[in-house]
């Protein structure tokens, strides 16, 4: 018997529903209704009054966690390196952004924090302040028992200097409070439909990665010791319960063989028409559980 996954859902899945047809409580209801045990949020989207929510909001947050029996998993945050038009943030300011979000994540009960750093190249190299900024808050993260997880997200694959630099940082510092977050989008092997406003010219150049960067899921086995959290990104599960873009059987098989026992947190990023996301997430939760069972019972190699 191999290790078992934990199942979670990110409220990001309900983008455009949230705040229009869905409030916080409806979000909790949708997540818990999938059978998930974990809830992931975006701090600066789902926390009213971010980064200093009112005591009333905090009461609601803890009441909902209790009522729906969900544990906070990962909180997403941003280090807005281009906050100012005329200059980028300094290392100190970057550390300040991380400190702000570590503190909030801890208050809300989260165990993982995903900061998204601004980038400085077309290849999406993070602003070089990331390293100094993270190093300055490692002690705080340790004290608060939070793992800071930069996300490995398309168009950045596993075999890339950005990912390798994060791994080198983990090796150099020996920290347990910095680890990789893998986004399933890197495994996408079929093109996404065009987004609204997206043109064929854009797809050829700026958004070419939306055709899929096709990372081989077997690469997970080489880096799994550095992986703390997984965002199970997906775009459409059809009526025959097939993911039309992510090769889920291969990904689930690789994760099982790698012995991953952390969260798979659903992250729907598809058509944003009202009321679509809730069932899409349910379909993906069903599919991932089915594939895990297939592996455990020898039907998936």
């Amino acid at each position, binding site marked *: 018997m191999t290790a078992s996954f934990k199942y979670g859902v990110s409220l990001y899945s309900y983008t*455009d529903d949230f705040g*229009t047809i869905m409030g916080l409580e409806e979000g909790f209801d949708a997540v818990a209704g999938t059978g998930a045990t974990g809830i992931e949020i975006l701090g600066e989207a789902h926390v009213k009054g971010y980064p200093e929510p009112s005591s009333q909001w905090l009461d609601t947050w803890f009441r909902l966690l209790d009522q729906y029996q969900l544990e906070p998993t990962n909180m997403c945050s941003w280090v807005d390196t281009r906050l100012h038009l005329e200059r980028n943030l300094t290392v100190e300011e970057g550390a300040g952004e991380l400190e702000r979000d570590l503190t909030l994540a801890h208050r809300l009960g989260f165990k993982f924090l995903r900061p998204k750093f601004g*980038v400085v190249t077309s290849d999406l190299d993070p602003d070089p302040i990331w390293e100094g900024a993270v190093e300055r808050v490692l002690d705080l993260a340790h004290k608060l028992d939070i793992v800071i997880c930069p996300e490995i997200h398309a168009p950045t694959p596993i075999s890339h200097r950005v990912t390798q630099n994060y791994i080198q940082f983990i090796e150099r510092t020996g920290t347990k409070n910095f680890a990789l977050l893998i986004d399933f989008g890197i495994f996408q092997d079929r093109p996404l439909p065009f987004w609204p406003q997206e043109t064929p010219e854009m797809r050829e150049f700026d958004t070419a990665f939306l055709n899929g960067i096709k990372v081989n899921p077997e690469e997970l086995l080489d880096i799994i010791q550095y992986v703390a959290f997984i965002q199970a990104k997906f775009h459409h599960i059809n009526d025959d319960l097939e993911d039309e873009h992510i090769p889920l059987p291969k990904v689930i098989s690789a994760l099982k063989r790698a012995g991953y026992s952390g969260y798979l947190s659903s992250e729907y990023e598809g058509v944003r028409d009202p009321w679509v996301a809730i069932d899409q997430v349910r379909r993906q939760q069903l599919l991932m559980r089915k594939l895990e069972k297939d592996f455990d019972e020898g039907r998936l190699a």
Partner: protein
Amino acid sequence: MLLEQAPIQSTGFRNYGPVDAREGFEIRIRTPNYRGFRISLLDGVDVAVDGERFGYENNLFALNGQTFSLEELRAASDVRWELGDPATIIVPRPGGLEPGIHQVYVGCRVRYPYFPPKLQPHTMPWNRLLTIVLP
């Protein structure tokens, strides 16, 4: 308050200024992002109505009772636009707009720090038919 899903809201499209001497019009919008953000990341908002263009340099941005010029927006690195809060774009146009159905374009010029440098600022083009009820 729950907002309409369309980023340009139907409610809030109206003329402003004295009734017999309108000074311009207003458009209510949601955040051009899936998260809240500090408004120094918003480098102005372009507007067009029935093909008539109103450049981002002259339009004003109002949030929670506070109004910002482009220069003030650029300095407002401590003001957060929350996901659930509507904002208002204030467009000076003597006389305002005629009551009726108008083709409205809104382009929020946003710096998304995690997008490549060449895409800064990035504009999501929004178009919608909107109705002005009162002169």
